């Protein structure tokens, strides 16, 4: 790679999604939200990309960070979770997805640039987890990630209450 750069061939930049993603627990479950802009430097590469990734019928995962890492990680997780479901014969609990994600990200010591908001409902409870690229996770009633996380968090901190109804979630 370095020899190519020396010859004048520029390294392709990994496309990083400047992003706002958020997740919140409410009375009957969870709400996940994300913007749809994917940027390549200053250019908008995709005006309408989907940042809420399917994992299982009862759980979805919002992703911020390196677009390729997110796609690959969530697709890998989705298939592993499906195998888990078939193996155990039951709905996959959210803690299982959380464990699998954190163990994978920790193994790569932060080089997989995936910052995730995992949310879902299983037979025990409704869950929101924020998962950082190095593999630390926090279980929280509401969380935000991405470059817009501070702005989104300010809204949550001002307005979140426990056990909100669907219609109030703006």
């Amino acid at each position, binding site marked *: 790679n370095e020899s190519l750069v020396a010859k004048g061939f520029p390294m392709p930049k990994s496309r990083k999604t400047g992003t706002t993603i958020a997740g919140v627990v409410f009375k009957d479950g969870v709400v996940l939200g994300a913007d749809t802009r994917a940027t390549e430097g200053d250019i908008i590469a995709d005006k309408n990309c989907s940042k809420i990734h399917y994992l299982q019928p009862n759980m979805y995962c919002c992703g911020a960070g390196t677009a390729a890492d997110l796609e690959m990680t969530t697709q890998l997780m989705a298939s592993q979770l499906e195998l888990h479901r078939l193996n155990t014969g039951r709905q996959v609990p959210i803690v299982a997805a959380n464990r699998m994600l*954190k163990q994978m990200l920790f193994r790569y*010591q932060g080089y997989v640039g995936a910052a995730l908001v995992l949310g879902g409902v299983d037979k025990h409870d409704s869950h929101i987890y924020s998962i950082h690229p190095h593999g630390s996770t926090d279980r929280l009633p509401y969380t935000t990630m991405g470059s817009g996380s501070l702005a989104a968090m300010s809204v949550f901190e001002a307005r979140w209450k426990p056990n909100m109804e669907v219609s109030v979630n703006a």
Partner: protein
Amino acid sequence: MQTSIMATEFDGGVVVGADSRTSMGTYVSNRVTDKLTRVTDRIYCCRSGSAADTQAIADVVSSHMEILEVKLGEPPLVQIAANTFKEICYNYRDMLMAGIIVYTIPLGGMMVRQPVAIGGSGSTYVWGHIDATYKPNMNMEETVEFVKNTLTLALTRDGSSGGVVRVAVITKDGVDRRVYLHNELPEFYQG
């Protein structure tokens, strides 16, 4: 994850306590973190340093202890948990940033048994307080007060610590988890 964590023995059990702030630079990413992590039903550890590293280590040790419990037929000793933490922290010391109190295992992997242990960035502010205030043979309520006061002092002075004070009282009968919100904490000189 800079922190204030501590643990104190009393006659009949242990009181462990921690603040609840996880910061990423100047941004507090989680203001209600639970840094008192279950290793087994009767062994808890306080985590400081890198959140990812300490969570991963605690998970490994916890599952190790579960397997050991099946093999031994009884819950494993704290020394075994502490030793397992030490093995991991010491052998991977170059790659990990983890300070864990089961007994006390600071960065680097040294393991020491003490009646009182404090750790994390906030601990530097309260060594003097511990030396002045700790008495051996306190009962449970006195120990909880001691832990609460010490953590409050550390919290107020350390920029990397804050939020609520989480305390867990572990006795042979079980674990009593408590949370002290900001308005429930003792007041000290606010110079």
